[in-house]
């Protein structure tokens, strides 16, 4: 009985973590779909988003949830600047050069975070969280809000991709870059918008993660591996798969704490990812942008 309660309790945590991972993985997947490389600085974009959001509510004294749009804007602009300053110039070379560059960019972003906000641990003023008890399961209000925020962001993204001209153009580019070019779709503009959205989603993940736990300069890097695992599980380049991937990885990571040290959570994500790569190098879920 206790085990069952533990399991349900951990599942709740798993869905919360999975929401955060999904937001990150969608961005990774979208960037891969259009630019064809694994973006290693994605975790650090999350970190930037979390800190910008925190600064915004600290400075303006706004309610905590205002951190979400503020952080998303900050990270979206950061991603755009990084792309225009660096990635743009090496986009025509091999994708692997972009991979190396983004690995370096991860460290650049992290050191900027350390310089601007300092190395110490910070946290969002969530106040005292009094959990609601459902049966013997504790449900913390912020967790509900995190899941709701994720649903809102994902729905907005879905509407953007399926209803707007530019969203459809993004899907078209990820389908077939050459055809998009001869159709007259302005590739550079679509790439810029991809970075804005990818950055915003990363920040969404970062702020929610920051609200759920604490902020450190390495928070994004530490969660990058599970994010990649979620993106690969969902079939990299396929954002809707990334949502499912995020939930599976999130649940697996939390439930693993029943029998493993919690610090091994990222390793659990990694093991699942390797298993997926061995069995199905294309990822598990089928779908498309």
């Amino acid at each position, binding site marked *: 009985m206790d085990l069952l309660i533990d399991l349900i309790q951990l599942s709740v945590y798993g869905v919360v973590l999975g929401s955060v991972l999904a937001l990150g993985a969608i961005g990774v997947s979208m960037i*891969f779909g259009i630019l064809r*490389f*694994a973006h*290693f600085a994605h975790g650090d974009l999350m970190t930037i988003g979390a800190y910008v959001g925190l600064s915004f509510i600290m400075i303006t004294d706004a309610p905590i949830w205002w951190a979400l749009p503020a952080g998303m804007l900050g990270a979206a602009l950061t991603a755009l600047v990084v792309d225009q*300053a*660096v990635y743009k*110039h*090496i986009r025509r*070379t091999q*994708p*692997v*050069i972009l*991979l*190396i*560059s983004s*690995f*370096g*960019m991860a*460290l*650049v972003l*992290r*050191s*900027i975070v*350390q*310089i601007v906000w*300092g*190395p110490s641990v910070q946290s969002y003023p969530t106040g005292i969280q009094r959990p609601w008890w459902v049966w013997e399961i504790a449900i913390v209000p912020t967790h509900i809000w995190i899941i709701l925020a994720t649903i809102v962001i994902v729905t907005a993204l879905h509407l953007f991709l399926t209803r707007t001209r530019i969203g459809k153009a993004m899907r078209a580019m990820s389908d077939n870059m050459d055809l998009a070019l001869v159709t007259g779709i302005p590739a550079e503009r679509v790439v810029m918008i991809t970075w804005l959205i990818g950055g915003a989603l990363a920040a969404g993940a970062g702020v929610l993660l920051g609200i759920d736990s604490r902020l450190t300069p390495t928070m994004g*890097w530490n969660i990058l*591996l599970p994010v*990649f695992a979620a993106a*690969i599980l969902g079939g*990299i380049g396929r954002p809707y798969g990334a949502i499912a991937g995020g939930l599976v990885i999130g649940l697996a990571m939390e439930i693993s704490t029943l029998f493993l*040290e919690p*610090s*091994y959570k*990222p*390793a659990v994500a*990694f093991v699942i*990812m*390797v298993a997926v*790569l*061995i069995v199905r*190098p294309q990822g598990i879920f089928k779908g498309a942008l």
Partner: protein
Amino acid sequence: MELAGIAAYLVSFFTFVGIYAILALGLNMQWGFSGQFNIGVAGFFAVGAYTSAILTTPESPWHLGGYGMPFLVGIVGAVVASALLGLVIGWITARLRTDYLAIATIGIAETLRLIVANERWLTNGVRGMSGIERPYADFFAALGLSSAMGSLIVVCAFLVLVYFLVERARQSPWGRVQRAIRENEPAAEASGKNIGRFRLEAFVVGSAIMGLGGALYAHYFGFLSPEAFLPLYGTFLVWVMLIAGGSGNNKGALLGAVIIWAIWSGSEFLMSTALPEALSGHAGPLRVLLIGVLLQVILIKRPEGLLPETTPKTVPFGKRD
């Protein structure tokens, strides 16, 4: 600074350069020759370092050990352990495309770091392993040399050996096949080459060399903790060295190690003296920023590095007109 201080600094400087040059040569084997993307260098580095440390240290209540093996056994153990790790990873990732290999290697490196940090029975966790000796110190003392100087000589000796092996590998038919596979896989396969075998060999040998670098580091530094194997030190600097120097070119790997380590350690000195007070607390991140930006500049302006890859002198006699 006094002369003796400068001399001591230079000894330590070149010892680090030597260790990093060994790592860069190992990476060159994997990336430069064979085109395999490993950003988990820190993992192989760590396995080598801890293996040698555990094999050679006297008994300690804090971690596995007490075998008290000789130095060379530690080195061999480190090489074998990291080669085995390379074998397993290379075998798993053989069929994967570059991006997945990158993610998988960083995953294994981070997982190893978690193990090192958490399995205290094995490594004493974050408190680290201390008291790793320089078993060659007595020998050099007998020659009237300091143990630091001894470390430099030992590291240089291994560096010469590694350079010799890697450069010969590059010039050999084996290296030729590696480059052929990197350039055009279907054509290499149509030329009868077993691509899987060659790939794996380059990955394993590269991993073994990284393990050797780890072991030398352990004995020189005398203390190991998970901190040393953060991706920044263990992987990122090595990559910047190879890219800056010129991947595919072993001399480039050496040159990159010297230049980047000079910038890296020089920036520490510079920032400790020249930084305005308001920023003095940020010297660490500023240095990382500097190297990170440097990498971007190299990738944009000179992606083939300072010394681009050259064609090995395959012609021992000149029949050409």
